[in-house]
């Protein structure tokens, strides 16, 4: 009897958890749909009105689809996904309600969502150009930094004498923001593109270098001994042992490098560019066109989210052997 009531209790408990999750994710969907209905069904306040608010509706539908896909493909993470999307959907709802419909704040500085999202529709070409330009500069500089900093870092971590020189220098130089070199790089290099690539390279180089050196330095000496007992050449040692062993630390350096490159690029664009994401925001700021400033900010956030996602995936793939990143025992067999 007692056993029965116990199992009954667990079943109820489980269904409670399930219904709780369902209820919470339902809330997200309800908020999103309420926002869509409000956008379509009710007129914007006169100051916030634009000819066409379909762009915002499309965006809301996109968010709904992304959330649905996340639930479908990654059900284990339902709690954290729902939390994040609850914040996003609530924010969009309040934005539409308080600014779009009621215009509680100055509509010039705080545009409603319809006003902002129509920019994506009317200014598509300039925005795409901006993203392409920014990313091509970002990745040229960043990959250059990766290609140079990792080999140098591995070699410097391995050879004591080189380490004694390189490590103190890189620790001293790495905190200096790369934009410090902006005046000179603009004077000395022929184009804005070249000088931005150079700045991003400098900004990303030091953290990746420090990450690589630290990575080699913190390898378990017993693993090194095991490798040495195989009588490897220096190249084999660096390529097959030091590089993979230092990879977790290299990745954390590369992450910091990526963030710094993005900041450097945006600042450089705001100061001296004629195209790109940072330029887009700065340019329309000068015209006091806050619709486009906010649209540019949203675009930048979207780009950052995509890049960081790709970075995470790459990291997870390369560190699949690592207990902190691997997918557990089942993936092995």
């Amino acid at each position, binding site marked *: 009897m007692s056993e029965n009531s116990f199992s009954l209790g667990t079943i109820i408990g489980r269904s409670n958890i399930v219904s709780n999750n369902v209820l919470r994710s339902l809330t997200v969907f309800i908020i999103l749909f309420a926002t869509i209905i409000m956008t379509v069904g009710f007129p914007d306040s006169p100051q916030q009105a634009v000819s066409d608010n379909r762009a915002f509706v499309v965006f809301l539908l996109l968010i709904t689809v992304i959330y649905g896909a996340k639930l479908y493909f990654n059900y284990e993470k339902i709690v954290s996904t729902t939390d994040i999307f609850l914040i996003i959907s609530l924010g969009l709802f309040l934005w539409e309600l308080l600014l779009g419909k009621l215009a509680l704040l100055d509509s010039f500085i705080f545009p409603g969502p319809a006003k902002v999202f129509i920019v994506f529709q009317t200014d598509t070409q300039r925005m795409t150009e901006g993203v392409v330009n920014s990313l091509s500069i970002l990745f040229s500089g960043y990959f250059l930094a990766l290609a140079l900093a990792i080999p140098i870092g591995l070699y410097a971590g391995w050879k004591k004498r080189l380490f004694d020189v390189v490590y103190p220098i890189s620790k001293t130089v790495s905190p200096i923001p790369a934009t410090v070199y902006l005046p000179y790089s603009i004077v000395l290099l022929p184009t804005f593109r070249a000088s931005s690539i150079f700045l991003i390279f400098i900004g990303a180089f030091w953290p990746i270098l420090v990450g690589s050196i630290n990575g080699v330095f913190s390898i*378990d000496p*017993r*693993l090194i*001994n*095991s*490798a*040495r*007992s*195989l*009588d*490897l050449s220096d190249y*084999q040692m660096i390529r*097959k*042992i030091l590089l*993979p*062993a230092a*990879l977790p630390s290299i990745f954390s350096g590369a992450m910091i490098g990526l963030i710094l490159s993005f900041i450097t690029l945006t600042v450089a664009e705001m100061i001296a560019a004629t195209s790109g994401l940072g330029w887009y925001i700065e340019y329309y700021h000068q015209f006091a066109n806050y619709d486009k400033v906010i649209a540019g900010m949203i675009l930048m956030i979207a780009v950052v989210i995509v890049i960081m996602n790709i970075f995470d995936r790459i990291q997870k793939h390369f560190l*699949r*052997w*690592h*207990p902190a990143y*691997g997918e*557990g*025992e089942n*993936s*092995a*067999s």
Partner: protein
Amino acid sequence: MSIGNGEFTSLIGPSGCGKSTIIDVISGLRPPSEGSVLIDGGRVKGPGTDRGTVFQDYSLFPWMTTFENICFAIEHTKNAGERKEIEKTAQKFLELVGLGKFKNAYPNTLSGGMRQRASIARMFSMDPKVFLMDEPFGALDSLNRIYMQDLLLHLWSEGEQRKTVLFVTHDIDEALLLSDRVAIMTPSPGRIKEIIKVPFPRPRLRKDLSIDPNYLTLKSHLLSVLYGEAVEEAKKQEDELKRVV
């Protein structure tokens, strides 16, 4: 001290007496402070693949699967064949130690016993002249340890030509079960105090050994040598302390 071809010798002694240092010197990872190591009359100048080493729990590289680990080791031996041949050998030895199903598993996803089995498969697959084993079963639980000892003995005596083995341990039973000779080391300065021949015929059975009176005498002799050393050492330290105070 010299070790004959195809002989299984154990090195036993309290921790800190330099057993692992001897393994390091023979494997060429560090130079001897005096004297030299000769293998087949040739002086050891550095690490080489004519000696295969199994360490306590870090012989395998965690970023390679067990299969890749073994292939990588074979590739670096002097008489490595073609890629296909290497993979065949690796597969064979993985199956010999019962890890055929786990060839694509990363070491971190395996248990300690399985990792050591893979390390031993790696050592055998490299086909070195000399096996150096530094407390290879020290981190295993007693059941796994028994299984691994039997596996090692089995693989070692199966081969067409028995390998020369230097086996470091602090377990007397393990040393007596596995070896032809047992060398006892004393701490500070680390010296070999006594070398004892283990007379029991092979194949040895754990069950028979444990009731053999000769085995018990040998064991108690080893114990008294080791224990006497330990007591002496403690006394010395005590005297030292008194003198200082």
